């Protein structure tokens, strides 16, 4: 049953009540749904300052602030080393950060992050986790390990809609000229030569730092393309798409170092898949977050807003507001692992002037993620059949992924389409304003209008649209940022305080968040004198 049938089966009275007075009568009303995302209202209390003073003080050897991938990875490593005396404080009701999942009537889907590329041999911790979860079914150090087929993205992985036709893969192939193709080839050659030099690595700290490579960080990706005489519009679209998709920022504002990093850092291989295959699951990366949280669930405090951090000489005093209990708590932590986004540092840390100054140099991209629960997949359209990732050319959005793609089913029933859009057209602060100003209904209409270009039936099939507003979704690697020194104070070790967030790498990807989390945990274990074997070498 599609939504048209459903609505007509509801009585006329009810549908009249659903219809906004101004809606054209031939159009279906905006599907219902939830407004998801981060606890903005709670977070904004930080600015207004009406937070009760701490009513209790507790001492703790290790406190981890933030339960995203960075914080969970820190907890995961501490736990594996046999050190259990820690607590994770998370603002949201659920762990996982950008890797959370969402439940819908058609099953689980991602809130944000939705895939992990095959890890290369340098991503030691990623491989260790995957082996632990039984997905990497081999020696974790093997060059080409065997992976659980159910997590390898099923064929077809990607397709792209342009000029009314779906084409295979994301490189525009149909309707481009020989000159464009020649430029594609040259671009790919350049990326291959960077890969051969092993110039770019994951984790990014292992990247080579020769002057010519570091110089790439001082110009934009677009300027670099032009400096290489690469000006083909479909090539620029493709590279821009990749930058918006990975950094929430277009090619004019992403540094060439970060832009090339995306294309040249991947070295993962598998015995049973092509190297460009990704690992995914119906709820995106939530299975990875759950895997990290395995066994540490009892040491988590959710709905906890950390609003003050001050070094008191012997320990770090962290004030935590628990809105549900209407009180604040002071935790005197011998060791603090800060695994929350770094834009919060200037608002919460007392003292630490050098850190605060550095933190002000970070900028974060606002994102919108819409989860469309559909009663059935939309008609595939002309061209190649429905893929996992379906991208629209010339769209402000980044396309959508299909939650049921990995399922083995005879009959494809209801599914969730997770639609992404980075608000990269304006400056981040302006983008955030637009993001929060508009109503859920207005965003839902915009998403439907974008998808209707390729799927005329999408509105009738959509039962529910959940909109997630992610104001500071990811750090923006703008020119001069990654290697300009702003990250350095956060990457350094100190006696009591360590930072464990993808922001520290300047690249908002799972592997970097996990690396920073594990690194912070290992430095903490060293300070505490706990013996462990490293997950990083």
């Amino acid at each position: 049953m599609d939504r048209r049938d459903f609505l007509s089966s509801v009585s006329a009275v009810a549908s009249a009540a659903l219809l906004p007075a101004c809606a054209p009568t031939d159009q279906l009303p905006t599907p219902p749904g939830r407004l998801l995302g981060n606890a903005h209202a709670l977070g904004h209390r930080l600015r207004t300052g009406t937070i009760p003073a701490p009513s209790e003080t507790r001492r703790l050897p290790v406190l981890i602030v933030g339960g995203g991938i960075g914080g969970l990875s820190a907890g995961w490593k501490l736990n594996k080393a046999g050190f259990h005396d820690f607590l994770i404080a998370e603002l949201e009701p659920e762990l996982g950060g950008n890797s959370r999942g969402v439940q819908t009537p058609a099953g689980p889907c991602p809130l944000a992050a939705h895939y992990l590329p095959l890890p290369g041999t340098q991503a030691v911790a990623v491989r260790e986790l995957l082996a632990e979860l039984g997905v990497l079914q081999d020696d974790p150090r093997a060059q080409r390990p065997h992976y659980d087929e159910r997590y390898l993205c099923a064929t077809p992985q990607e397709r792209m809609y342009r000029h009314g036709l779906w084409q295979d893969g994301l490189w525009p192939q149909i309707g481009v000229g020989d000159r464009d193709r020649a430029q594609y080839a040259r671009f790919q050659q350049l990326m291959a030569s960077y890969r051969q030099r092993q110039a770019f690595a994951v984790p990014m700290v292992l990247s080579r730092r020769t002057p010519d490579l570091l110089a790439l960080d001082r110009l934009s990706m677009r300027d670099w393309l032009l400096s290489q005489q690469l000006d083909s519009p479909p090539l620029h679209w493709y590279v821009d798409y990749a930058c918006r998709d990975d950094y929430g920022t277009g090619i004019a504002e992403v540094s060439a170092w970060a832009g090339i990093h995306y294309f040249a850092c991947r070295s993962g291989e598998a015995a049973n898949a092509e190297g460009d295959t990704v690992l995914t699951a119906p709820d995106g990366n939530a299975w990875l977050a759950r895997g990290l949280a395995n066994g540490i669930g009892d040491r988590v405090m959710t709905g906890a807003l950390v609003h003050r951090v001050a070094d008191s000489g012997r320990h770090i005093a962290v004030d935590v507001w628990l809105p549900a209990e209407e009180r604040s708590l002071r935790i005197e932590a011998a060791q603090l692992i800060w695994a929350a986004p770094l834009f919060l540092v200037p608002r919460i840390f007392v003292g630490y002037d050098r850190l605060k100054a550095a933190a002000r140099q970070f900028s974060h991209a606002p994102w919108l993620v819409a989860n469309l629960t559909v009663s059935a997949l939309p008609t595939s359209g002309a061209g190649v059949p429905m893929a996992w990732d379906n991208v629209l050319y010339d769209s402000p959005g980044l396309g959508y992924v299909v939650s049921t793609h990995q399922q083995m089913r005879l009959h494809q029933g209801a599914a969730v389409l997770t639609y992404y859009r980075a608000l990269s057209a304006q400056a981040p602060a302006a983008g955030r304003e637009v993001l929060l100003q508009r109503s859920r209904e207005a965003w839902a209409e915009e998403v439907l209008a974008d998808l209707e270009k390729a799927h005329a039936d999408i509105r009738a099939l959509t039962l529910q649209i959940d909109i997630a507003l992610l104001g500071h979704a990811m750090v923006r690697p703008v020119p001069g940022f990654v290697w300009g020194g702003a990250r350095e104070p956060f990457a350094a070790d100190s006696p009591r305080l360590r930072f464990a967030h993808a922001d520290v790498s300047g690249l908002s990807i799972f592997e970097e968040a996990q690396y920073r989390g594990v690194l912070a945990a290992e430095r903490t274990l060293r300070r505490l004198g706990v013996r462990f074997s490293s997950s990083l070498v």
Partner: protein
Amino acid sequence: MQQALLVSVFVVASCGLAYELIAAALASYVLGDSVTQFSTVIGTYLFAMGVGSWLSKYIVRDLIGRFVQIELLIGVVGGSSAAALFFTFVWAPEPFKLMLYFLVFILGMLVGLEIPLIMRILKRDLAFKDVVSQVLTFDYLGALAVSILFPVLLVPHLGLVRSALMFGLLNVLVALWALWLFRAQIPSVAWLRGQALAAAVVLIGAFAVAGEATSFAETQLYADEIVHAESSPYQRIVVTRWKDDLRLHLNNNLQFSSRDEYRYHEALVHPGLATLPGAKRVLVLGGGDGLAVREILKYPQVESVTLVDLDPAMTRLFSSAPALRALNGSALSSPKVNVVNADALVWLEESRERFDFVVIDFPDPSNFSIGKLYSAAFYRLLEKHLTETGLAVVQSTSPLYARQSFWSIVTTLESVGFVATPYHALVPSFGEWGFVLVSRRPYRSPETYPVETRFLTPALTPSLFEFPGDMARVEAEVNQLNNQVLVRYFEKEWRHVIR
């Protein structure tokens, strides 16, 4: 007077082209190969028109009276041409081609007579250059009008038989009009008028009954009688009957013909089950028609059969319709049979049961969704549901038409650690068809069949496992979820078979 004659040129030309198109369309409709039919019909017709034009010189007296008679003849012969051809093909297919070219020739010749006659009639009042220019102009305009109307309006709304009758009537009307216009110049007006009215009555009568008559003929010819048709949320189910042949179509794909389905289902079930005297628990995935279950229930040692089919409409139909129950021996009503309406994959993922014999009868791997049901991941799931000594059989498309697809299925089954034993059987409705038996231990084919079979015999059995040269094993990759090579092989191979 001149204008009137020119209008009749327009009508006459329209009719002339219409008969030609109708004959060609009908021929390609029933004989296929439209290029050949159109070119031979048009060629014959044009040649016959030439003959007609040549013969026109022998008509010297009473031009108008002859013209009227020719019009009436064209009206009757042309008007009934489609019906005559149609019924000839249905009841006496042999002389169809003879009839076709005979009719086309006669019509072409008569039409070839028309224009020269009209030109000669007009020549009495006009200069030759004007006659030629005006007559030919209207002749070609008439042809243009019909060539546009024919595919857009006539065929879709009237059909070929009634279109022809309608043009026949137009010819008769031209004749009547000519009689009225030239009533002073024709010696035997009354006699001709009588003929014209008789022709009109015949054609109008035929037009009235043509609808029913053709649909009757069409049922005889194309679609067998449809005995059941329904659309479930999952598929379109159509059962047809032609004489004693019942056929099931799902989404317009033939699933079985009752004339030879026993060959398919015996080959699917017995080579495996006949070697399992201890088989108590059997699972059937797909196969809601109950025909595989019918074969399974022949074995007394089988205590329970679980049939998992997604579509309740299918299992309901095959456990209630008398003709279909007769076909599956009321298998779905057997107390041993447990019908589960669920997605086979979901059911398999959730169930912990193990079976001695599993029949996997999924549709061919024609798209990425179904291709997943032939993947290594699916076969690993299957492995968990097979007892230590158990066997499973997989319908594996045609090793003749889709050779690499077939061997890719075998390779995939082997890749998960199964011993795979491929075999094949000839099912006339489908062609040479393939199956793969899988087990943990080497399989040995049965020396006898403990149950009654119509197709399988002990002597035939060894040959099922022999693959002749054109079906012999070829190199094929393992079908994985993340490469779906099988769907690509299948698409490539069947594209060569189906035009």
